[in-house]
């Protein structure tokens, strides 16, 4: 990087930062690092520059690199949820590209710092991951690379199965005390809402306001009282007195780490490393649309406020439209998030008659409203609240699925579209699987249960994942799910996955 280039970037950054602060964006100190493409792709593949080594990251890296080489990739943004915040700029990018990325990641940082779901993420993860990577490297020396790698393969195969809400409002580690995906105890309305049993008033009619996300956590002690009042808890306690775990446990990693009988210390440590990293990445997965929407909303406004030449404006317009390009077969989170924020802002700025009379919205509160949303929502509540009939029609959002050999549009009804999208985001889009019995058949076998909600599991993948669970648990493992509306039990005890209808 030439001195001149660096000077230009610093000057631009000064301006961008000032504009962002003028809009009340609130971010950590920012470290911008300029790096060559290979390095940026490495970071993209690993999710964090200091993360441990594994062939699957090498595979992701290879993919990014070759896509880049074939000129398929877009401009790249990489920002780390940390304090200070690290962001990376691609060497060789034009000044205008870098300006846009800078404005974009400032807003990401604001989101990391202020969104409720990020409150508990570690802001020192760059260092933690580096220390963890070091430990894993030592285990490789001590126990052999192949052994560590194959253990990592197994842990990674179930890494999504943590319980991000486990510790909220509780101090005990408490496998026994864990709440199992009860209505709204988990990821918010996605799971519980729409059910008769759902007691969350905010959910009714799919019109839960932000009361909902508030209820999810700070008030879930109140919620527990509710259940106690119905005597459910005490009844369960007597019925399942001998059950282990007492309540189904969603945190597979924790359960195996604590109760896997044949695990060595270094193996438990690896499980805990992966689990911690998952906790860190989880909020990013559950706010993908909001986070990208927010960053896109702001880069657009900040760039508009910069004094760009006509040529620069043109280049920026091109870049921006590349970022928000929509697709027939997937919803672009940048686009969807941006449009939703703009839509809400407009509705609160210029409320219609109904909004004014029924909800008493005076107008002019658009900006305030979207700041509130960025603070309190995640993608599930965001879409549930904001994806209105008007919006779905205006943006021509639909559902499609495979019919025979063809992928066809099957649904355009706005409520069904909304509900299906929301449902697909429950548990960050991963199947909800719990440990139902850690001493199955009194033989110390592991019985997992998939909470089937209408979406079947991929059997090919299931049959190849179960052996990993077996490897970790060291004894036969079972997984109950539903295929073709019938209960099915898969099992693996070291030789072959078998399947039977129960």
């Amino acid at each position, binding site marked *: 990087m030439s001195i001149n280039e660096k000077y230009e*970037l610093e000057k631009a*950054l000064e301006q961008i*930062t000032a504009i962002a602060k003028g809009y009340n964006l*609130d*971010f950590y*100190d*920012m470290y*911008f*690092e300029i*790096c*060559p493409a*290979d*390095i940026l792709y*490495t970071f993209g593949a690993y999710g964090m520059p200091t993360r441990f*080594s594994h*062939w699957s990251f*090498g*595979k992701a*890296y*290879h993919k990014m*690199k070759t*896509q880049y080489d074939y000129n398929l990739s877009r401009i790249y943004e990489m920002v780390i949820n940390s304090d200070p915040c690290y962001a990376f700029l691609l*060497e060789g990018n034009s000044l205008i590209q870098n300006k846009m990325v800078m404005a974009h990641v400032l807003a990401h940082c604001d989101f990391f710092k202020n969104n409720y779901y990020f409150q508990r993420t570690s802001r020192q993860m760059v260092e933690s991951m580096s220390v963890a990577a070091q430990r894993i490297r030592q285990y490789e020396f001590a126990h052999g690379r192949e052994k560590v790698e194959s253990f990592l393969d197994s842990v*990674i195969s179930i890494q999504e199965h943590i319980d991000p809400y486990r510790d909220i409002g509780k101090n005990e580690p408490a496998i026994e005390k864990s709440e199992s995906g009860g209505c709204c105890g988990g990821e918010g309305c996605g799971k519980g809402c729409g059910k008769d049993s759902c007691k969350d008033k905010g959910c009714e009619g799919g019109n839960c306001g932000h009361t909902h996300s508030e209820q999810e956590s700070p008030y879930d002690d109140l919620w527990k009282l509710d259940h106690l009042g119905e005597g459910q808890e005490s009844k369960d306690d007597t019925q399942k007195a001998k059950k282990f775990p007492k309540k189904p446990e969603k945190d597979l990693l924790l359960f195996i780490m604590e109760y896997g009988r044949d695990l060595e210390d270094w193996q438990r440590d690896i499980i805990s490393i992966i689990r911690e990293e998952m906790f860190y990445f989880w909020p990013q997965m559950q706010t993908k649309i909001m986070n990208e929407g927010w960053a896109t909303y702001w880069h657009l406004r900040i760039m508009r406020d910069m004094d760009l030449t006509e040529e620069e404006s043109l280049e920026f317009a091109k870049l921006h439209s590349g970022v928000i390009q*929509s697709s*027939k*077969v*997937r*919803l*672009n989170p940048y686009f969807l998030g941006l449009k939703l924020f703009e839509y809400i802002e407009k509705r609160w700025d210029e409320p219609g008659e109904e909004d004014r009379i029924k909800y008493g919205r005076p107008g002019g509160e658009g900006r305030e409203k979207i700041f509130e949303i960025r603070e309190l929502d995640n993608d599930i509540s965001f879409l549930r609240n904001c994806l209105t009939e008007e919006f779905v029609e205006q*943006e*021509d959002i*639909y*559902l*499609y*699925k*495979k019919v025979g*050999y*063809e*992928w*066809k*549009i*099957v*649904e*355009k009804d706005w409520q069904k579209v909304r509900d*299906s*999208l929301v449902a*697909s985001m429950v548990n960050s889009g*991963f*199947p909800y699987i719990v440990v139902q019995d850690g001493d199955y058949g009194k033989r110390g076998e592991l019985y997992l249960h*998939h909470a089937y909600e209408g*979406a*079947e*599991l*991929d*059997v*090919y*993948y299931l049959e*190849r*994942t179960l052996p990993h669970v077996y490897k970790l648990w060291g004894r036969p493992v079972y997984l109950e799910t539903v295929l073709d509306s019938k209960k099915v039990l898969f099992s693996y005890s070291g030789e072959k996955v078998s399947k039977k209808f129960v």
Partner: protein
Amino acid sequence: MSGRYTVSREDWSLHRKGEIDRQRHREKVKEAIKKNLADIVSEESIILSDGKKVIKVPIRSLDEFHFRFNHNKQQHGGQGDGESKVGDVLGSDSKKKAGKGPGQGQGAGEEPGVDYYEAEITIDELAEMIFEDLGLPNLKQKKKPELASESVEFRDVRKVGIQSNIDRKRTIFQALKRRAIEEGKQGLGKITREDLRFKTWEQVYKYESSAVVLAMMDTSGSMGPWEKYIARSFFFWMVRFLRTKYQNVKIVFLSHHVTAKETSEEEFFTKGASGGTRCSSVYELALKVIEERFNPEDYNIYGFHFSDGDNLSSDNEKCVRLVKDLLKVCNLIGYGEIEGPYYYSSTLKSAFKKIEEQNFTTVSIRDKSGVFPALKSFFNPDPLKTATGR
């Protein structure tokens, strides 16, 4: 106060993690390919690739397995241009090959549905793996030393050379020896310049002996497209193998139905024929070719014949007799029988059961994955060590 900022550029040249893990992934890809060679060897995309250097091999074992939903049974969100209607078709899987299994879109393409990892590998890399343990069996010294197999060898340990070619073992040995002699002490002391020993390497041609391979193929009407494809996959790799590993091996192409003729290589791989089958015709031709052009004193001679075994039954006895004649002049005769859907038991192969000579080998191929075992059994460089049952 937060909200400060800096811009910097560090030296990233030592940051090699991505490349190292990429290399590890590549190793795993190769391992996976090796395990599945039998299936990959007869992939149509390879046999028909016709000079295309890079091929794509689907590798499912390197998917990152986890519990996930069945993509093909789920509803997904998409966005239209304002005109979309229920029933609009966004894409189709029918043009993709069947049997690929479900997968998940990875974001790059505009196609809905399946996507799985395809490793890219050059035909040369693949060939290297396939040929690793193959060799011409029973190779003997012959009078005419034409055949050379290529190898790079370190020979000749010298006292000068480039640093990277230091022969560590000999250098240390030299230092130990010197210390023992000069100082009367055991163990390694300081290594002096005098101790250094270098390896030098050079391309050496190992002159073995000359060889000729007779490629014989049944192209009669009963050999359907599938049978011909199997036979040609075998010969495709055979030809490649011989030309990669040996410098001057001669290959003679003979095809037959009721009568046999010598063909060009191109014709051999592309032309089909029809009519009945008399396998003896090709054996007679083989004997004639040997007699006229390849003296067994001078050449290692090999013959490989592929047929569906649907031979004129009155001809079988003659075949046995002729093969026995061939065995007297050949190092090895291999007969491969392709069992098609209408396979029946009284075939040429059953007639060949009478032949007891050690240098006769037969294989049966029932499906595509049988081509690789056939290669391994015919080109087993040490057939006595790992006797192949027949």
